[in-house]
């Protein structure tokens, strides 16, 4: 068993957990209170929700990208 790999996985998990909390914090405190589209207009509520969902999606992709880089940098260097 590659014990260094196991240790590295644990570091990756803790890092991703921390980043996830920060991401949800950004969504809660900064993005959610914004009125990106006038909610009083027709379908405004839905466009506003869609715009915020898009921001959340971008944050999620960024989070997965950081995860990807962390794993690849270590395991590609060690394994190949």
């Amino acid at each position: 068993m590659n014990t260094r790999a196991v240790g590295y996985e644990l570091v990756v998990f803790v890092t991703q957990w921390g980043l996830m909390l920060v991401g949800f914090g950004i969504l809660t405190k900064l993005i959610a209170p914004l009125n990106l589209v006038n909610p009083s207009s027709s379908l405004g509520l839905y466009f506003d929700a869609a715009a915020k969902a898009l921001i959340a999606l971008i944050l999620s992709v960024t989070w997965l990208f950081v995860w990807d880089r962390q794993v690849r940098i270590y395991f590609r260097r060690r394994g190949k």
Partner: protein
Amino acid sequence: MASLGANTIAILIALGSFPVSLALTRFFMYWNLKHGIIGIDIHKLNRPKIPEMVGVAVPTTIVLFAAIYAMVGGSSSIPLLAYCLVVGLAALVGAVDDRLRLRGIFKPLLTLLCGLPVLILGLAFRGQVYTSTLHVPLFGGYHLPVIYPLTVLVAVSVTSNTVNMLDPLNGSMAGGISIVAGGLLIGSLLIGTGSMSIFLYASLMFSLLGFLYYNRFPARAFAGNVGQLSIGASIGALAILGKTEIASIVAIFPNIQNSFFFLSRIRRFTEHRELTSKPTKLLPDGKLADSEDPRAPLTLVRTLLIGRPATENEIVSTIWMLFLTSTSLAVITLLLTGV
């Protein structure tokens, strides 16, 4: 005190899931073997034939005990009905896949539909099945009246498929998800969520432990898609019903990593059996090693084997340890959320 009593009753009823799941697993082992429903354990040198689809014991037990709890526990039957329908539908999709070998794309599409009971019953009985407020650790929460109902469908599909993808070795899925359910049960008890979610987490954990007895190394029973998809859907539905959305994501970090690296390499939904480049290989001494095939996906098991082969038992123990870590983080997440 009343809450403590309700939780104690919930856990005591759920405890019955263990012997029932154990008995049902044994029954399905013999029945499936007799009817030729078998798979090959490719990670053993002698490639033994093992009864497949035995994981059906878990959703059967879960649904049975949810019905008992609805009658005895005095809890609202609407969320329990939603939960049972989600688990039952996912089991059905899994069973169809086990028998008909569906193409890889169909599983995520069909499991999207499995979340519909939660969505429909949630809309019909507002506030009884879920609330559209997402509780965030440290930062409070926010109301998502439009987005939240849609994420219900995605949540069930993602959890069921990601659990389905991390069951390559004996006991890896059953043991891992037992740890997840156990951790979220402890977290729910600590923050004092309703007794219904405590019952459902306990029931899931005990059902899985009953199945794990026969699925652990060397396995005498395989879960099959019927077991894997329903257990994953159960985690997704429970995240919604028990308000443990973010903690549940954290708890299944090992599944997420495995699925993400599988999909990022293969770039399409496909079955493991259809892969031409395998991530691991079996050595003549019975140990597993990295296949060193650059086209093969970087699965979780492969990352643990890079440079050093290991026995199947060692790898599974390590996977459980990773689940223990992610579940500990999930419990901290729940405490920080403090719903």
